[in-house]
Structures are given as C-alpha cells and as structure tokens.
C-alpha cells in the first residue's frame, strides 16, 4: 500500500540556519508515527512542510500522492500547531465553527460535530466561554478539538501533550490510538522519550538530520539498548553504520 506521506531528501534553510538536511521518510497509513528529537532538531519544521504551511528548500514532500503544499490535500489534513494558535477573544464554539466552516462542514454537520468534539475533549460545559478564560491544558484540548473537528484522514500534531498532566496525557494518547485504529494516520512530535513507546513507528531527528527510523522494538534492537532514550543517545553518539539508518 502506498504511504500517506513521502518525504524525499528534504532540506530547509532559514537564511544561514539549516533546519532540515536531506530527510527521507515514509509514513504508512493507519499508524501513529512519532517524530522525536531534542529542542531545535527540526521537528516543527518537518511538520510544517508535511502540513503544507511552507515549501521545502530542496527535495519533495508528497501527501496522498500529491506534492505539498496542495490545495486538494488541505481538507483531508488536520494540523495542531505547537502553540494553541486559536482566537482567544472567541468562544470555543466560535473557534470550532470558524475552522469547521473553513473545512467545508455544512451547518447541520457542523452543529453535530461541535457538540461531539467538545464532549470528547471534555469541554462541553465551556463551549461558550472565550478561550482566554481557559487553562493551558484546556487550551491544548481546544486546539486538538479544532484539528479533529473535520475528521481528517491525516492528523499532524506538534507536541500535543506538552504541559499536560499525566491523566490528561494518557487520555490524549488513548484518543490517538483510537483514531489510528479507526484507520486515520497520525504524525505526532515529541521530545519526551517515554511517549516514543506509544508510537508504531519512530523517526529520530537531531540537528536537522534523521538519525534513524523504525518501530520502537527495531530501534532498541539495532542499538542494543533496553530503553528508547538510551537508543537515541547511542544513535546521536553516531556509530557510522547506524547513521545510515538501515531500518527504514
């Protein structure tokens, strides 16, 4: 089966800064794909390229077989940015209605989905309060709700669980798992290694380069480390053959 996302030798320059250098990876359908790496390693940059928020300096990103950014893909992708990136003066309902309408939901479906998604992220009772009255975690859930509203086939979530308490974090990951089980594809970035085990496949990024890709068990195996944090460190220390990333 054709992968949902194909990243081919992609680089991104910001002036003198190389945010990504020659990254190649495929995301198959129906899984949770984790992008892991320390701060500044290029996770957000890669995510923005996949979401179609900007263009690569070199190489190509294809989503659903079409080169990004593509207008035709837009409605099938849900994107949760690293910051909440919603409208704090507007109520949750107004935010959801706005994004839902942009994604082409008709009035009836929009009403249904707004109620359903608010209940799902446990914000049904706050639908009509403005977002600036929300706590950080509530804002994060509101942001996720806006990305999920139109039931996209591909969900791209940039550090969705940062700043969440353990209970909420578990709830988020259970929700991601349910979505993947329902056939959606998720790309989730994180710099927390204990989240890596919850993904089906992983890509380790460091200083704009891909260290390795593979399932958590594959990565443990090739590095001969018991936990993924050590696996990452071993890869980052960079024994030559491992940098080639034999596991794709």
């Amino acid at each position, binding site marked *: 089966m054709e992968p949902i996302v194909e990243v081919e030798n992609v680089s991104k320059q910001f002036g003198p800064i190389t945010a990504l250098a020659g990254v190649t990876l495929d995301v198959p359908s129906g899984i949770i794909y984790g992008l892991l790496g320390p701060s500044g390693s290029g996770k957000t940059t890669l995510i923005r390229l996949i979401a179609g928020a900007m263009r690569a300096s070199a190489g190509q990103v294809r989503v659903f077989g079409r080169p990004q950014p593509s207008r035709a893909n837009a409605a099938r992708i849900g*994107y949760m940015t690293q910051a909440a990136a919603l409208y704090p003066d507007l109520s949750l309902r107004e935010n959801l209605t706005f994004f839902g309408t*942009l*994604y*082409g939901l008709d009035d009836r479906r929009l009403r249904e989905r707004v109620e359903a998604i608010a209940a799902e992220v446990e914000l049904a009772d706050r639908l009509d309060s403005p977002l600036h009255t929300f706590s950080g975690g509530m804002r994060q859930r509101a942001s996720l709700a806006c990305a999920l509203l139109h039931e996209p086939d591909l969900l791209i979530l940039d550090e969705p669980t940062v700043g969440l308490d353990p209970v909420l974090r578990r709830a988020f990951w259970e929700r991601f798992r349910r979505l993947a089980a329902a056939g959606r594809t998720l790309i989730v970035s994180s710099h927390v290694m204990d989240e890596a085990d919850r993904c089906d496949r992983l890509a380790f990024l460091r200083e704009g380069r891909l260290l390795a890709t593979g399932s958590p068990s594959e990565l443990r195996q090739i590095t001969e480390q018991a936990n993924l944090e050590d696996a990452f460190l071993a890869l980052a220390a960079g024994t030559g053959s491992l940098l080639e990333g034999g596991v794709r």
Partner: protein
Amino acid sequence: MNLRRILALATRIVHQFRRDRRTLFLLFVVPVLVLSLLAWIYRGDGASPVTLAIVNEGQSPLAAQIVTGLQEDASLTVREMDAAAAMRALDQGEVDAVLTLPADLSLRPGGPPQQIEVTLDGSDPSTTSAVMGALTRTLPETVVRAVNPAGLPIQIEPRFLHGGPEFDRLDYLAPVIIGFFVFFFVFLLTSVSFLRERSEGSIERLIVSPLGRGEIVLGYMLGFTLFAALQAAVTVLFAVYALRIHYVGNLGLVFLFTLLLTLGAVNLGIFLSTFARTELQVVQFIPLVIVPQALLSGILWPIDSLPEPLQWLAHALPLTYAAEALRGVMIRGDGLAALWVNLAVLAGFAVLMIVLGTSTLRREAA
C-alpha cells in the same frame, strides 16, 4: 473562491471585535467625541476676543469716531488708557495690542497719508492676525463715515454657490473627519489583528486550511468594511443631525468613497503588518502613514496653500482624494460625474494595496 469560507472569516472578525469594548469605543465613540470637541471649539462662544488698548493722545473728533467704530467691532474688546499704562498692560499680557492715535489726527484730503501706530506683542501669530484683521476691517469704514455717514460708497454683497454665510470651519472639516477616521481605524485594526494572527500562530492554521490567499484578503475586507460602514453611518448621522453641519449630499456616494478607502486601508494594514513584530511597532507606523496624510491631505489646510513639492506629495496620498470627494459630495452635492477622478484614484489605490496585501500572504508560505 468560496463564499461560505469568506463569510466565515468576516463573521469571525465581527465576533472578535463585537465583545471588545475598547475597540468599539475607539470605533464609534471617539469620532463622535472628536467632532463634538471641534464643534465646541469652532462654534462655542468661549473665545475671548482680542483686547486692544487705545492711547488717544489728542481727543480729536476723528479719533473719537475711530474709537467708537472699534468699540462696535464684536471681535475686539477696547480699553482706553494712557501711553505708559498701555505699554505696561501689553507687557503683562493684559492687552494684545496698543493703538496710538496721535493728537493731530484729522482728515486732510489731498495731504500725505498719516501714520497711526499699532504695537503688538508679536509672539503669537494668530493674535497678530486677529488684531490686524480687525483694524483693517474697521478703520477704513469709520474714517469714511467721518465724511459720509452712510459709510463706504461701495459695499460687497456676497452670494454663495455652496455653503453660505453660516458655513464655518466645522462644516468644512466634518466631511473629511469621517474619511480620516475610517482610514485610521481600519488601518490600525487590520494591522493589529493581522499581527495577532501571526504572533498567535493562527495564520498557520489558515494557510494549511482550504482557505485561499485571495479568500483571506476578501474575508478581511468584508469584515472591516462592515465596521467602517457602521462607523461612517454613526459619524455622518451625528454630524448631520446633532451638529447640523451643512449637508446636501448623497449618502450612497459617501458610503461608496468610504468603502474604497476601507479596501485600501485593510490591505495597507495587512501589507505593513509584515514589517512589524509587535503591536508597538504597528503603532510606530502611525507617524509614517497617518500623520502625513492628516497634515497634507487638505484636512486642515487647503492643498493649494502648500508649497509646490508638498502639493505633489499631497496628490500621492489616497486620503487627499477621499477628502476632496467627501467634501464635494457633502458640501457641494457633487455627483459621480464631478468626482470620477477621485473615484478612479481611490479604486486604483485599493487595487494596488490588494495586490500588495495578497502578495505578502503568498510569501507567508515561502
């Protein structure tokens, strides 16, 4: 282009400002306050008339006649005093000027012109011109009355094509104030809301959504046009019905010109907001974008009275054309036939700004 998406964006903008009391105050109350203040300044009767000290040295009949004439001038308060007291009063600012009528002042037909001396403080040009204006208005008349009690043999009889004898500075200013506030607030609100869109990161959500760049620009224009139209309506109604300013125009044309100005201002705001990173930096655009237009677009001084290079500059500013058109519509009752140049220039400015605004959005995804 999808109308539903454009409307969604316009609706969002309305929702964002609907609850923002400060912005609503800025939009709808400030223009009314400014107009009221101007009305008070130009129509209130608090203005203290110029005080003139007269030193009447000889008490000649002509001198007495001149004193009476000046006393009758409503713009002057006249006090007679001796020379020393008068100079002291001028020095202390109790009087604005001292007029000295010499002892031998009399009519000497055919003789050389006689001098009467006015001493002015001179440090305030408006007082100087008020004193000189009153004197040049009143003196010839009173002198002629000395020989001919009917006064000047030739009288000026004004006839007005537009406006009238009651027409004052406020009538002249009000139409332009409307255009100025629309431009100012729409520019400010668009650049701030666009900047927020960028700094909060929501612009990224818009860019990856099915919303096109053109739709973003159209949505913004639609949302702000609504506010601009409401603001123009409030300001015009207040000026016409509460301040009773001179108004013979067509409200439709007022809205047409306001609309063109709004479209230009929205896109100028979108365009310039790319060059700002904070709201303070947006505010720093005001001296650059707003102040020159306030000074040069004929709001305060007629453009003809400016030095020539500044006149050229004035004719490069959109507000100049809007101000002229709004005055034309409201004061002279001009129709489109007389204002098509203004219409074309404003439409051209709007199109140019739309192109610039859209192109900045295109660069957003670079």
